[in-house]
């Protein structure tokens, strides 16, 4: 899922200081799972904003709504009839949701309420870690299911580097060396021979290096 973290409330308050009718808009997908931008977080932020406005003697209307998704037009259409009552929206969706909402409602300022951080997994409640950088050409088949693009600090394809020490990465003693994990996994799969094979140069044109990306699927396109 897309992992996001809450933005400091002070930052959001500063963005909204000139607005009088505000919609706090959550998303029911990834940001709900990582407890940054779902219905609960919308409620807490809206309540904090209302109290802040009240304390400062400002008359501000702050409403709350959480959509099924903000990265699909059909769900964003749900606010088409009500959006005119607001002069600003704080979107607690990931960066995709914020931008897609802004595209649909071109003349409305849409402010981000979270910091979108990475594609990751839930280790335990409150702990998320990165697993994928969406490079556009998956190589997990050859690396024992562990991604050196996302998990090796140097994105090495024929690692480890000389900084790997007792299974940890030289950038931080708490970070596992991705290549140690790859070797261990290949060993468990009895595929250590694969480790000896040199990984060829990767075509990075499918990564961000090739500019913004697009997927067109003729088989499902309407």
């Amino acid at each position, binding site marked *: 899922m897309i992992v996001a973290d809450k933005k*400091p*409330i*002070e930052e959001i*308050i500063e963005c909204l200081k000139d607005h009088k009718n505000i919609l706090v808009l959550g998303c029911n997908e990834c940001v709900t799972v990582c407890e940054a931008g779902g219905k*609960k977080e919308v*409620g*807490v932020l809206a*309540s*904090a*904003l*209302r*109290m*802040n406005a*009240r*304390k*400062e*003697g400002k*008359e501000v209307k702050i409403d709350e709504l959480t959509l099924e998704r903000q990265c699909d037009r059909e769900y964003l259409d749900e606010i088409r009839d009500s959006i005119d009552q607001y002069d600003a929206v704080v979107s607690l969706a990931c960066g995709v949701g914020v931008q897609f909402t802004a595209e649909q409602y071109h003349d409305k300022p849409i402010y981000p309420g979270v910091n979108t951080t990475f594609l990751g997994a839930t280790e335990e409640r409150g702990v998320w870690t990165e697993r994928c950088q969406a490079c556009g050409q998956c190589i997990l088949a050859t690396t024992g299911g562990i991604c050196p693009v996302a998990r090796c600090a140097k994105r090495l394809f024929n690692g480890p580097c000389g900084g790997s020490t007792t299974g940890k990465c030289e950038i931080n003693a708490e970070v596992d060396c991705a290549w140690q994990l790859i070797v261990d996994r290949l060993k468990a799969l009895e595929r250590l021979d694969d480790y000896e094979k040199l990984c060829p140069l990767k075509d990075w044109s499918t990564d961000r290096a090739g500019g913004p990306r697009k997927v067109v699927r003729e088989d499902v396109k309407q």
Partner: protein
Amino acid sequence: MPCTGKVDVIHIMRSFEKGADGVAVVGCLEGECHFNAGNLMARRRVEQAQKILDTVGVGGQRAQMYNLSSSEGPRFAQYATEMTEKIKELGPNPIRVAKNKAA
């Protein structure tokens, strides 16, 4: 509530939004939660609410977490007195004051 583990930040926030001067969350003794960690989660949520309340100028000290066992009536009374003293010191909820002024 059957367990303080059910207390969420939003419950504390809404209480202050509606004008409460203070909120005391009283849970079982730490380590003695029937559901293992309900009271520990409650404490973290109270701490979270305190931070937000400080940020918006209500004052985090108005939300407090206390722990006791169900047989400790006198201690409950002591906590209630403590809380009342604390809130008296802090004065009325500034949100309510602002609301009344605006009305």
